[in-house]
């Protein structure tokens, strides 16, 4: 009797454990690759480490070094240019295009055209635009047309190349935002717009007063995605300029990669990664906090 009872309780215990087995593969993989990595990065960011010798803990040295390192400061500035440029092109222009597209009959045609570069990866878009912007491409055409001063390799001009790359990545990345804006604009209820029209609002006023406030939820999503992605810009820069010339077009993601894997400063690289992550988290938090407030 006792044996049967203990067998039963064994069985029910196993029965209680089995549901957790469904979780196991996901949890194990995420813990190994993500959560372990987060802590490891945090720890390494306080150490001086070339990856070969022992880790040497140096407190906040890496973080102090960051703000004295001209490469890091320039890279932060470039990242800021990327962020502002992203607000201008993939967000603002996408919104203007979306509004324009909802006014014409050939919606799906324009949607397809503007979304098409999204079928390319950032790497591929970078390769294509690099060749177009090389001295055989667009600058050459401008030279032939009589603008000789413009006929040079723009991507090797410091600072100008960052602007060009921001525009290039706008060409590639506008599609997703555009689609989201169009979905949002089409979902806006007709009644408040009609009411505003009767009140006499039209044109730009109708948009700034009525339609854009109604679009706010979608705008927040687009803003969040675009801002976070622009902070992490890597692929485009890696293929178009590789951060050069003389490390003038690096962003934080590129600087982090180079410090860690080219200069073997794993500790310093981790500190930059931490800085990047915390910045991204703060931005996400600010934007999401507003979203939740809107829902309350």
């Amino acid at each position, binding site marked *: 009797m006792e044996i049967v009872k203990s067998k039963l309780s064994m069985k029910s215990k196993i029965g*209680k454990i089995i*549901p957790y087995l*469904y*979780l196991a*593969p*996901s*949890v194990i*993989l*995420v813990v*190994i*690759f*993500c*959560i*372990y*990595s*987060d802590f*490891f*990065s945090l720890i390494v960011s306080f150490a001086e480490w070339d*990856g070969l010798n022992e880790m040497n803990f140096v407190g906040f040295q890496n973080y102090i070094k960051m703000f004295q390192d001209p490469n890091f400061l320039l890279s932060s500035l470039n990242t800021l240019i990327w962020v502002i440029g992203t607000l201008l092109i993939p967000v603002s222009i996408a919104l203007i295009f979306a509004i324009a*597209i909802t006014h014409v009959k*050939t919606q*799906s045609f*324009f*949607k*397809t*055209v*503007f*979304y*098409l*570069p999204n*079928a*390319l*990866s950032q*790497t*591929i878009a*970078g*390769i*294509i635009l690099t*060749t177009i912007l*090389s001295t055989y*491409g667009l600058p050459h055409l401008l030279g032939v047309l009589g603008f000789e001063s413009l006929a040079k390799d723009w991507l090797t001009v410091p600072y100008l190349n960052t602007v060009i790359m921001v525009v290039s990545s706008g*060409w590639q990345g506008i599609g997703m935002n555009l*689609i*989201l804006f169009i979905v949002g604009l089409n979902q806006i209820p007709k009644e408040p717009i009609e009411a505003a029209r009767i009140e006499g609002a039209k044109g730009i006023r109708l948009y700034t007063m009525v339609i854009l406030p109604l679009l706010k939820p979608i705008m927040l*999503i687009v803003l969040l995605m675009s801002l976070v992605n622009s902070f*992490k810009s890597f*692929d485009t820069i890696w*293929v*178009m300029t*590789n951060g050069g010339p003389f490390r003038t077009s690096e962003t934080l*993601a590129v600087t*982090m*990669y180079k410090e860690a894997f080219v200069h073997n400063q*794993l500790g310093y*690289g*981790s500190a930059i990664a*931490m800085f*990047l*992550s915390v910045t991204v*988290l703060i931005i996400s938090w600010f934007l999401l906090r507003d979203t939740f407030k809107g829902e309350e």
Partner: protein
Amino acid sequence: MKSYNDKNRRNINIFLSIFAFLWILPFLYVVINSVKTRKEYNMGEFWDLPKGFSILENFEYINDRIDFMMGFLNSLLYGVIATTLAILFASLAAYAISTLKIKGKMFWFMLIYSGTIFPFQMYIIPIFRMYSNVDLYDTKIGLLAVYTALCIPFCLFVLRNYFYSIPKELVESAKIDGASDFKIYLSIFMRMAKAPIAACFLFQFTWVWNDLLFGLTLSKSAEARPIMSSLSLLNGAAGTNDVPSALLAAIIASIPTFFIFLILNKSFNYGFPTTSK
């Protein structure tokens, strides 16, 4: 009033058409120049129409140069297998969280979903170190494991939301019929979730296919290198001045994502709202 509106609409159409033309121009450039020979491109102008059709030569050149086909097949392997595994694992977890009797459902969900919070820059140094220690650096298995792990949180999010929408009555009646938990998972949840599974697959496959960061960090030989890392070799130290070949490679490497674009574009036109990673 009507003529004013018509005029407005015409202006908007002109405005959009100009930009649409600008948006298409790079594609025209790629298509026209990818079939030229290297000499033809370097000697002539990029706006000249191609004289011949030297796709095969260009393909051969690029294949020699960066092991293009191997990169293509590697990425296909990573994309299909990692995404499938991630969906399988994530759906099991989503099923446990939404339906099975477990404690701390929210905790488990947040634990797995936390994988999307930090930028991937946080992961590359630790994973690189870990892989160097266990000899997974520069192996197919290593890249497969990373891609699988990083696809799980997004899939879990999508599938959990969907699983919660499946009526509890279905589960109850299946249980009365004597179906086991696993049978319910297979025959009810997975069968009903075809649409969200397809969405997960398309998005995550695209992400794996387009990934450059992990390919660069975790592979060095052609045997394991995914396609975007191979392509990135074209610009840089080992770069090429054979522009037509590079453009051809860009076209071929975009074929899978272009198909996905066609599928998604169709569903966008039905108003399918979505967000990417």
